[in-house]
């Protein structure tokens, strides 16, 4: 029974939330349009959290993803404002994220700084850089090519549902692709297996011939890459970039992974569990907004929910 609550408590809570919102908002909540909307709303967070899952599998984490996302958005926007093609701007922004992540990886695995300290430092560095290169200004309006902003508004039409035309948003498709890629990486490849071994026992992994340092470096690079992708999606969605727009992503991404860990056997992060965590956060946000709950109250509720889920799983996980 305890085990049941530990493993499925979060899922049961999720279902309760769904039932609650469906009862309170019967006309607008349980509709295909709203659900497709939710998938778009959470797509940025989904991508960043998927990247976060990769480092958290090793027992590390990355506080710099929010700043990296902002920086990537700024870099792309500046390049586009300077007349560079969209593809080049996006590519350079992703590269910035990859290199930023690799820098984290070097600090953590080669220099040997604790991830908390190293990524706290790079968090402020990336954020500062975003301000420096942008001059602290929001880049928007005509500086941003229309095609870039249109991408986030577009999607694949799915026909009509209840008399409303609905479509699968492009951003949601990207999120699904990223989640699939991370799932393949973590669950189907030797790389993922080795990351889980590092997370379980770093010394045993090292003595079993795993190149712990190199794998950690790669993992942090991937997390940086995902953060940049999340930042670009955000910039596309609002057709603008400012140096702080990714700042909310970091805490939510970590929260989503933690929510996910409450559902796994030994509390290890799993990508599909992270997906559930992200959707829980997204549904709460969506439902509470529709019920016009004040955004500050929303923060309190979301924080309390995370505590509840993690507490329930650790309390039942054996006391003493």
């Amino acid at each position, binding site marked *: 029974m305890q085990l049941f609550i530990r493993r499925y408590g979060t899922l049961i809570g999720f279902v309760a939330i769904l039932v609650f919102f469906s009862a309170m908002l019967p006309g607008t909540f349980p509709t295909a349009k709203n659900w497709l909307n939710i998938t778009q709303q959470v797509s940025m967070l989904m991508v960043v959290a998927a990247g976060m899952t990769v480092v958290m599998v090793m027992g590390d984490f990355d506080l710099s993803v929010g700043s990296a996302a902002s920086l990537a958005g700024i870099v792309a926007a500046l390049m586009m404002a300077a007349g560079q093609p969209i593809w080049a701007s996006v590519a350079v922004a992703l590269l910035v994220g990859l290199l930023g992540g690799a820098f984290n990886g070097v600090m953590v695995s080669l220099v040997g700084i604790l991830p908390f300290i190293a990524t706290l430092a790079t968090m402020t560095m990336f954020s500062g850089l975003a301000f420096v290169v942008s001059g602290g200004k929001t880049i928007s309006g005509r500086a941003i090519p229309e095609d870039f902003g249109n991408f986030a508004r577009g999607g694949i039409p799915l026909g009509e549902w209840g008399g409303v035309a609905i479509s699968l948003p492009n951003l949601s498709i990207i999120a699904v692709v990223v989640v699939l890629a991370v799932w393949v990486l973590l669950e189907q490849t*030797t790389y993922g297996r080795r990351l889980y071994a590092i997370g379980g026992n770093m010394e045993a992994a090292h003595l079993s011939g795993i190149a712990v340092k190199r794998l950690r470096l790669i993992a942090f690079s991937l997390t940086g890459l995902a953060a940049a992708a999340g930042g670009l999606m955000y910039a596309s969605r609002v057709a603008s970039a400012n140096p702080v727009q990714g700042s909310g992503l970091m805490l939510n991404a970590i929260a989503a992974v933690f929510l996910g860990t409450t559902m796994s056997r030994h509390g290890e992060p799993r990508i599909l569990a992270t997906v559930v965590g992200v959707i829980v956060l997204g549904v709460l946000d969506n439902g509470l907004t529709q019920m016009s709950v004040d955004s500050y109250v929303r923060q309190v509720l979301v924080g309390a929910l995370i505590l509840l889920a993690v507490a329930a799983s650790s309390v039942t996980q054996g006391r003493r």
Partner: protein
Amino acid sequence: MAPPVPLLSATSVTKAYAGVPALSGASLVVAPGEIHALMGENGAGKSTLIKILAGVVAPDTAEIAVNGERVSIDSTKAAYRLGLRFIHQEFNVVPTLSVAENIFMGRRYPRRAGLFVDWVKLNREAQRALDRLGIDHINPSQNLGTLSLGDQMLVRISAALLDDAKLYVMDEPTAALTRDESERLFRVLREIRASGSSVLYVSHRLDEIMALCDKATVLRDGRSIDSGSMADITHDDLVSMMIGRKVEEAYPKPQSQPREATVFAASGLATPGLKPVSLSLREGEVLGIAGLSGSGQSELIRAIFGDAKLTAGTMTLAGAPYTPSSPAAAWQSGVAYVPRERRAEGLVMRRPIFENITLAHLTRQSRAGIWLTPNREKRFAAELGANMRLKVVGPQQDVLELSGGNQQKVVFAKAVAGNPRLLLLEEPTRGVDVGAKFDIYSIVRELTAGGAAVILVSSDLPELIGISTRIAVMRQGEITTVVDAAGLREDDLINLCYGRPTGMVA
């Protein structure tokens, strides 16, 4: 004369976990002034019985009496009040605090003016506790983390001895101790016995038990067997009680003689903790490494395994130069390693058996070195496991759920899975029961029969003598002597370890 009232009597103890019986009507009766051994293979119910006595686990049924009075031990506090003290394998100590602070942990520190800790007095009292064990090389004000594991254990024991208790329960106290440290501990245990208190001594080391204990209770499949007086039984009697059948041999005989061809040679191998060492191993040979703990054995192994920076020296493996830059390179060259601490260094406890076994061989145990093939891995692990008599539900079971002996077999399975040419073993049977030990030795024999060479570091001297072809003795970071193991006497080996002259003819 009526028999004396037992100090502790626990009878008809039963306990089942989720329907699986751990204890089914076991009894344990300890007389006052007795050192009583509690024995049994891993999984026989020892730890469950101890946890029941400690008030950590509630029995399904049990009649427990202390000094003839019925009691129920429903909490660790109750056990403490009854005068029972527990010294566990996994020590709960704080390495960043001083020795004295660790000794007084959970007790009231001596104070000045009722407010300030009286550090001088604290250290003095801690010193007294250490003195009682005859420990003069530990300074109470130094950080516990700076001590060797053995010394840390001694500190724990001296803390438990601080207040006089009726019964001290010690779970494998000598696992991390050197011979000298163990002897010191045994002296104290005998003093405790002389003062009328008792000791319940849990160990896998039969020689220790034969020498130290007055009686034994042997657990097998959740039931207990009373050994009677230790003076009336032999080593082999004890082993048969534990495994429930007669044993012919503690160590399986080699299946073949070592061959001529050299598998591995090191010449002038040196690292910061290792003075230049040269050695060579032939096919099928087991080279034992003896020595006091910390004499450079681990450094030597780590150097061969590519996990240390060489300052000098060269190695060859199967005739070719061997220059491992990392454990990964060592595995690739066909060198396998069973580390000293299986939980800390050998296993990923919360992952399945098959993942642990293939962890060092994923490049081959996958498609193109990239794509996992779990079904193939599981079949591979199951075959390997069956071959070494691994007693598990299946290859997908988490290592966490296995007994110590089976966990060690998983470490061995990982080591032999790649058919190594050279196998490095450090304390391969520490904390492993008799049956599993024999299985592990058989694996070693099978490997050497196939032409592999083995380097065996062990503090278990009978094991060294029983398994090795030759034994190299290390002292202060270098090899001082190499002797043939056949016919070697234990006390001669001890003398060699201490650098004392032996009665041996060279």
